[in-house]
């Protein structure tokens, strides 16, 4: 297991996976406050002559809270895309390229391989949204006012992070099922957006992992009864997806020639 964890760390570092994820999240964490404070008002005022700052503030939530909500929206919409495309090959590429054949014959266990991926990239995805939300919180606080407490922001970051871990387990499962990185990434992305849309339409988010995002967007310290449902369903979801991934890997035929 230790060697598998080391391998995933090296993969993440040498193939810039961590860098891509961190760069994207931090870029939006810094860009969103600037956009709302400077760029957006200038654009709107140039498009709509006579528009005053006061009117604009009535139209938009130009506070630290508004910035954080805007950032979290971007994080879900664009961040999910970046996560899916950056990590879609985590398992699918390995199956496609037969790079797991030698490890398997050398005694590597499927569970060790998959759990190492989940641990290394899961930890990164659990922490990165919180870290970037903290950066956004501080910068938005400097540009506007500190109107939101630090603790709710950290909790929101963690809830968002947990949702991306769920997404990661989905990427591993679709990777094992489809064996093609892009197909795995797009399928997971569609399922993520679909789940959120379904949860919002049918008001089912409390019973779905997407409930984590709803709770995160409240930017308050959630009551136990509010977060326990989505957190529990997400943890169970990650466990079930991981189990299904392992089941699928055990049934796969390895070292097959690529279809020509």
């Amino acid at each position: 297991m230790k060697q598998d964890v080391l391998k995933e760390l090296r993969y993440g570092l040498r193939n810039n996976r961590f860098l891509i994820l961190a760069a994207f999240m931090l870029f939006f964490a810094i860009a969103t406050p600037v956009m709302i404070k400077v760029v957006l008002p200038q654009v709107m005022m140039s498009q709509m002559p006579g528009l005053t700052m006061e009117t604009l503030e009535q139209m938009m939530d130009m506070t630290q809270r508004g910035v954080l909500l805007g950032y979290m929206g971007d994080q879900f919409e664009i961040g999910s895309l970046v996560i899916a495309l950056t990590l879609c090959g985590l398992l699918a590429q390995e199956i496609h390229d037969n790079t797991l054949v030698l490890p398997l014959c050398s005694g590597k266990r499927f569970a060790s391989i998959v759990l190492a991926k989940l641990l290394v990239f899961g930890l990164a995805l659990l922490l990165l949204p919180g870290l970037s939300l903290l950066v956004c919180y501080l910068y938005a606080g400097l540009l506007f006012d500190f109107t939101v407490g630090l603790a709710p922001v950290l909790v929101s970051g963690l809830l968002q992070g947990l949702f991306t871990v769920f997404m990661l387990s989905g990427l591993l499962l679709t990777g094992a099922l489809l064996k093609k990185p892009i197909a795995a990434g797009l399928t997971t992305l569609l399922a993520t957006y679909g789940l959120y849309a379904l949860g919002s339409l049918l008001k089912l988010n409390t019973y779905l992992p997407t409930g984590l995002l709803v709770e995160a967007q409240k930017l308050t310290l959630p009551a136990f009864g509010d977060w326990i449902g989505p957190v529990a369903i997400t943890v169970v979801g990650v466990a079930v997806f991981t189990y299904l991934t392992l089941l699928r890997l055990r049934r796969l035929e390895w070292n097959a020639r690529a279809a020509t």
Partner: protein
Amino acid sequence: MIIIQDLHKSFGSFAALRGISLTVRRGEIYGFIGQNGAGKTTTMNILTGLSHPTSGNCRVNGRDVRSIRHPSELQIGYLPENPAFYAWMTAGETLTYLSGTGKADTGRLLEWVGLADAAKRKVGGFSRGMRQRLGIAAALVHDPDLLILDEPSSALDPEGRSDVLRLIRELKQRGKTVFFSTHILSDVERVCDTVGIIAGGTMRLEKPLLELQRQHIVPVFDLRLARPCPPDLADDLKNHPLVLAIEENEDQLTVTVRDAAAGSVWLMEQLATRNLPVVSLTQHTPTLEDIFIREVNGHETGRA
């Protein structure tokens, strides 16, 4: 070390293996030869536990491949036809990762396969030959007694091939059993103890190399006569106990005999008796390639 009996493997309606049987004994080098698409890699995938047979028995190191839960339970070293490594890992890191403990003597292994100087280079920059050698080192990382090598010398330049064959010979000297597939027949002649020929998913032949040479690699005389062969010459000669086969073509005669010395004397006597002057006489022995082509052609003729 390996016992296969009546092994079948189908992919949908396509039967890749149609009842092959073979035996690999401890300490021998077994050359598994066949054309591309004959079923070599499919057989090897089953032997390594990477693929599941449709029917038949297959025991590796005393374990039934159907009963294992993980390929590593077979305790083999495996080199795939195109060993896929992580391009971003160095050779040393690759072996350490595959060893699983971080305590393997990867330096000694890399030195043995001639990659000591490349230990800290990323595998992505390796040539095909270097990757094959690293693959052999990877197969040996747990020091298994049985090695299964899929086309280890294919697509290598002559020097690379020679290196790989030297490594295989050294493995035998260390007491390892090696089962390797190839379509390069001269490689088989250079290192193997036993040869198995597969064609169209069936075993065409399985014999110790020496026995194969004794039985199949018999002397052949090519004669050129001063005038065209008389019509009854081939029929007259073919029934003699020394003659295995005879072909005539105008003034040329090809005679396969059991014994080179007795055959040449007898043949010259027969031609002298018939007053047929000989312009030239050359002797050659069929190679493994001739046998292989004959077996494969036999299969294709049979199939047609």
